[in-house]
């Protein structure tokens, strides 16, 4: 059994230690907001916060997540400025990558309240969006910037 703290709650899961955190979150804890896109850390759909930092959950063996605070999209407050900005700027199209985008953006704003364009691009370029919502993502991050972080 492996103990995990996810979204402030303790969970015990019966899985092999090398199973990626992504699949434990999705299939064992049924937190399906975190998505599977590539499995090799190239698309960012599976992004979660590990001790506040944006990480690719498909690249983290579940055993390595022990003792860490994991936050998924479901654990980010509903009134989080990034979530609100994402609605205000009408970012999602198909929506599949957006949990990862939002988690990546929220982690950025947690450490940089007013990121430059360059910082936004450098931080977000690891998160693919096949619908091409990139201009809206930039807008939404700017819109959320400086409005106070709760994560």
């Amino acid at each position: 059994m492996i103990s995990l703290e996810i979204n402030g709650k303790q969970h015990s899961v019966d899985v092999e230690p090398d199973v990626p955190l992504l699949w434990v979150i999705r299939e064992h804890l049924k937190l399906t907001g975190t998505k599977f896109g590539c499995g090799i850390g190239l698309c960012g759909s599976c992004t979660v916060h590990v001790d506040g930092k944006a990480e690719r959950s498909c690249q983290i063996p579940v055993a390595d997540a022990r003792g860490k605070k994991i936050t998924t999209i479901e654990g980010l407050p509903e009134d989080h400025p990034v979530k609100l900005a994402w609605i205000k700027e009408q970012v999602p199209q198909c929506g599949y990558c957006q949990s990862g985008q939002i988690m990546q953006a929220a982690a950025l704003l947690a450490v940089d309240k007013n990121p430059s364009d360059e910082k936004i691009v450098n931080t977000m370029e690891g998160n693919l969006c096949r619908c091409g919502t990139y201009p809206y993502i930039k807008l939404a991050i700017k819109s959320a910037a400086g409005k106070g972080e709760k994560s």
Partner: protein
Amino acid sequence: MSGIFNVSRREFLKTGALVGGGLILGAHIDWAGAAEEGSKAKSYAIEPNAFVHIAPDNTVTIIVNHSEMGQGVYTSLPMLVNEELEADWKKIRFESAPVAAVYNHTAFGMQMTGGSTSVWSEYDRLREVGAAARQMLIAAAAATWKVDKKTCRAQKGKVVHTSGKFFTYGQLAEKAAALPVPKDVKLKKASAFKLIGRPTARLDSPEKVNGAAKFGLDVFLPEMSVAVVARPPVFGGKVKSLDAEKAKAVRGVKDVVQVPSGVAVLASDFWQAKAGRDALRIEWDEGPTAGLSTPGMKDQYAKLSKTPGKVAKKAGDIEAGLSSAVKTISAEYHVPYLAHATMEPLNCTVDMRPDSCEIWVGTQFQTVDRNAAASIAGLKPEQVKIHTMFLGGGFGRRANPASDFVSEAVHVAKAAKTPVKVIWTREDDTHGGYYRPFWYDSISAGLDKTGKPIVWKHTIVGQSIVAGTFFEKVLVKDGIDNTSVEGAADIPYAIPNILVDLHTASIGVPVLWWRSVGHSHTAFVVESFLDELANAAQKDPFEFRKGLLAKHPRHLGVLTLAAEKAGWGRPLTKGRGRGIAVHESFGTYVAEVAEVSVNKEGELRVHRVVCAVDCGQTVNPETITAQVESAIVFGLSAALHGAITIKGGRVEQGNFDDYPVLRLNEMPKVEVHIVKSRKKPGGIGEPAVPPIAPAVANALFSVAGIRLRELPMKPEVVLAAMSKK
């Protein structure tokens, strides 16, 4: 659920035409014509009960019969209904439709989403549905009050009498349900629209932002297994021998079953199933395509392109045109296979029982998938139920006449006798075939002494998307698959002598529609080559096009608008070039101007794209702009990066490392200008894809003097062209 328009009671009564029979398809769609004129004869009955459900608490649920894959139909289609229904927009909810004939596409006679048709194909029906429902609600109120209907009006979810008394829609719903559907409904004039044409926030945004939106991959059933399938490394391959001993020993693996598409490993979860698959020992009979390679195919196509094909378009006299031309130029173009690479890899969940089969899937092809499942399960179509989930991207991949990912999952469920979710890894998805075809083009043209093109000859070589499918009968005419030549056989330019012909190659690689279908290829060739002609005529590419489009005001309109907004002809930042392209597809006219630079390493940078779009009457301008930008990003991914290549019958790409798509750091500034129009709506999901590749290629020519006649415009290709210069 005492609300009126109760779907469940009616849906199974309405499956008529499709039950047991083959698919009924409308005639070939003349996209521009269909969008402009609308369907001449109505292919549907007005059935408010199938589309509108009003609950006692005044919540109005619109049943949406098109799949939501990013394009915003869960908002735009309810907007059409509510323009006439006059419910309180804040009370509008949406639900995906079950499979039933009443939900068939008004032009295609089957339930499906594709071809950028959702809005225009529902533009009349859903407004009529809304109007009929409104009239029934008014009739119910008038009957209760015993007053003339004319003294009642609908307003924001209420029927209000001239005296000021009112009923809410929720109060009237049950009574209205018992009334007959009005025979003829009158629709508002466009000038009276309150909702249509107004930027409207998407109804599905909140759940797509908080992680609650359920995609196919997010479905869990009690006692469900997860399966991954080992498929042949070569298209058309078969299992020769299978040793599943080691796989069965993997922790969590429950079963290994053979299905027509390969070998499925079922386990408690994905990781175990994948580990089980890794442990399979399979010997494959690779079949006839094992020798296939992209270079070989290219050579074969190139040879074919020098010979006459089946005539797709003929006007004037090619020989006479050529002999009177004072200057002729010829070129050869080619574009690669492309994967759709939806962010959500393919998946399908099936619960098969002795007398039912329930499927949860992100699909664009409900009727086809339902019928395929029924035939595999040995059930009647009405015993198969499909839950259309949110699609994590479609782009055509989830509209497969072969129902590959649904059929396979049904086979697995049938063989394993357990509810199962089949998950494709990214690599499975990329290797899975059903690509945009590889195309090869030989094209030549001649100019008269004034520099006007007087002859145009275009030979196209490639696979037919619809060959061997049930679409073949409808979409192939006189040996020509219309999707192979669309955008090439119907060029708008005033050139008197034209020949466009086609060689349909037969190669064992599965191909499919890919966002903008044939146009994704033909616009690149036509619009690039037109630039070559402008250059040969020593004319400005914009003015050159303008001079040939006098009879095509909508082409001309977007071309001029894009040029103007882009500052065509005005000085540009040093080291940058501009390119322009214009193309009509799916009833919508799009012109794009790209600003491009290139560095010494041959890397292209697209800085800015100015786009003008004429899609007729807009429904939700908010999503139109988003779709246009989306299409440009999609087209740029292909123009700069995308290529599926084959070696020894095997697809060489697998994931986003070797099949890259555009990232945020490559995103140009995109400006979208929508032409104001009251013409009937055209499509919007696809039409902005075709012009972007040629606009970029033309810009590259303008800045670097090199003409790329192949995609993608990879640095090595650019460098090779530079060194030849």
